[in-house]
């Protein structure tokens, strides 16, 4: 069952000297209870996608088209601001942005930040009720009570990130979007944060998760399916095992061998990069955006490739057209 259905989402950054065509024709769905990974390198559009999905679309970003359907079939993009504030943001879809831990207000204790968040949605709750709710939730996620009494600068990076995740999940959102939640963290702290996310899902505090990262090995550990993005386009969607061990799109085929892990296999496997660089999205080429770097390119690739289903995978590439 789909909790979110994205259809042809298009969003550009409208700058003085032209538009950056950051997101083009994004179509995918999020199933109930799954962790969907969004993988891609810098500039591929993953954070732009996160902004549109969480409806936090600030200029110069402009939403130019597409639909975002809830499980009831309502188009989130058509809802009035009042409804978005009350019912959607934080409740249906919650966002943990990149470097969220740096956004914690250092002049307030964590418990005051929690109070702010809860009061925004439940203005009638008393101070004591809010404190109790916060304490219980933090206990549920394994954060010690002292975190509530602390200021953000008294906490380590890992604790701040877990606090931000706890704050974002206060309303038990159906969808939690985490944008690079562990990229700035040490590998051992990363594991505690990932364990927290899995725990939140197991306890039903969060129903489904969209996990955005460039780290494929992390997705192997926690994601069910992966969406691969390149230069603003979704190029492949499949199960985690299919994408990693049997990638179809030439970009995915080039990306998987770049993953370096401390396992003996990597010394035997050929590790290679992808020559060239992604296109400038101010003036992207017509047709397939991966064409200049693609070893399988043919003349038909000058036309925009369609989305094609191959068994359980969806891939945007002429190689698989009949």
């Amino acid at each position, binding site marked *: 069952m789909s909790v979110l259905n994205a259809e042809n989402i298009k969003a550009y950054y409208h700058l003085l000297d032209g538009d950056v065509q950051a997101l083009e024709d994004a179509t995918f769905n999020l199933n109930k209870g799954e962790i969907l990974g969004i993988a891609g*390198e*810098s500039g591929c559009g993953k954070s732009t996608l996160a902004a549109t999905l969480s409806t936090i679309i600030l200029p110069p970003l402009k939403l130019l088209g597409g639909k975002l359907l809830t499980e009831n079939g309502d188009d989130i993009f058509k809802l009035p601001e009042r409804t978005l504030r009350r019912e959607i943001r934080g409740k249906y879809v919650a966002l943990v942005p990149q470097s969220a831990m740096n956004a914690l207000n250092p002049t307030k204790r964590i418990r005051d930040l929690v109070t702010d968040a809860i009061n925004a949605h439940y203005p009638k709750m008393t101070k004591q009720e809010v404190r109790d709710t916060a304490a219980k939730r933090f206990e549920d996620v394994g954060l010690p009570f002292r975190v509530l009494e602390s200021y953000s600068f008294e906490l380590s990076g890992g604790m701040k990130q877990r606090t931000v995740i706890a704050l974002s999940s206060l309303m038990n959102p159906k969808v939690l979007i985490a944008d690079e939640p562990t990229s700035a963290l*040490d*590998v*051992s702290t*990363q*594991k505690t944060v*990932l364990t927290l996310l899995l725990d939140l899902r197991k306890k039903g505090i969060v129903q489904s998760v969209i996990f955005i990262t*460039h*780290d*494929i*090995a*992390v997705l*192997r*550990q926690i994601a069910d399916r992966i969406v691969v993005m390149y230069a603003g386009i979704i190029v492949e969607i499949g199960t985690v095992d299919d994408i*990693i061990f049997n990638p179809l799109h030439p970009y995915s085929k*080039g*990306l998987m061998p*770049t*993953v*370096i*892990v*401390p*396992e*003996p*296999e*990597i*010394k035997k496997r050929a*590790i*290679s*990069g*992808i020559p060239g*660089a992604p296109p400038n999205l101010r003036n992207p080429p017509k047709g397939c955006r991966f064409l200049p770097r693609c070893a399988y390119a043919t003349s038909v690739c000058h036309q925009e490739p369609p989305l094609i289903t191959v068994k359980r995978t969806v891939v945007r590439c002429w190689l698989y057209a009949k």
Partner: protein
Amino acid sequence: MLSTEDLTKVYESGLFRKRSVTAVDGVSFQIRKGQISSLVGESGSGKTTVARIILKLIQPTTGRVLYKDRDISYIKKSRDLIDYRRHVQGIFQDPYSSFNLFYKVDRVFNMMFKLFEKPVPKTERKVMVESVLKTVGLNPDEVLGKYPHQLSGGQRQRVLVARSLLVNPEILLADEPTSMIDASTRIDVLKVFTDLKKEMELSIVFITHDLGLAYYISDRILVMQQGKMVEEGDAEEVIMNPKHEYTKSLLSAIPTLSKKWA
């Protein structure tokens, strides 16, 4: 080639109530010729501080660094320091901030020529610069005459490696050189290091928090935890057969492709 003996660096702050942080605590190791040694540790482990001490950017509190059996703390005159820098070069994490964005990238090469004992004539400079660029796999026409923002992160990083090669150093210290570069271009930068080791017998000290990277590229791995060196050995041994508890716990926290966490 280069070794450290009981290297210690303590930072102190405060006038009345002194607080001290021991960034490096009694670290001893050896760098052998023609090998890639990785200094691995999480943030706060002291690995960058060790690099800075070796590059003579900061002074140790106690302990010493020996280069070819000579204690480098005796290098005081600027002429001797310049000579040391011809032998030991450094590459840092951020390929953007190492450049002055107002100048073309050619400038970093010109500045390097100042380290030479005798001035190098212009024609010879051009030949040398083109040669080192080719060594790192860059086409001189694609790179020279450009501003830093016109190059990708991977290209910038390789330009910085190329300029270090101008002085024909014996030791190259690279501090997290690929952590700010995308995965698909990271491999090309890593290949530069392995080629340099093979073809020029350069000794490379590779500093990283990424044990996977260290395993892929190094001959030896040295693991640091909170200022102390807790394990060192052949890369294969340290990763496949770790002895210290910290190394074991570090390895178990790394997400891998073959095994899944419970």
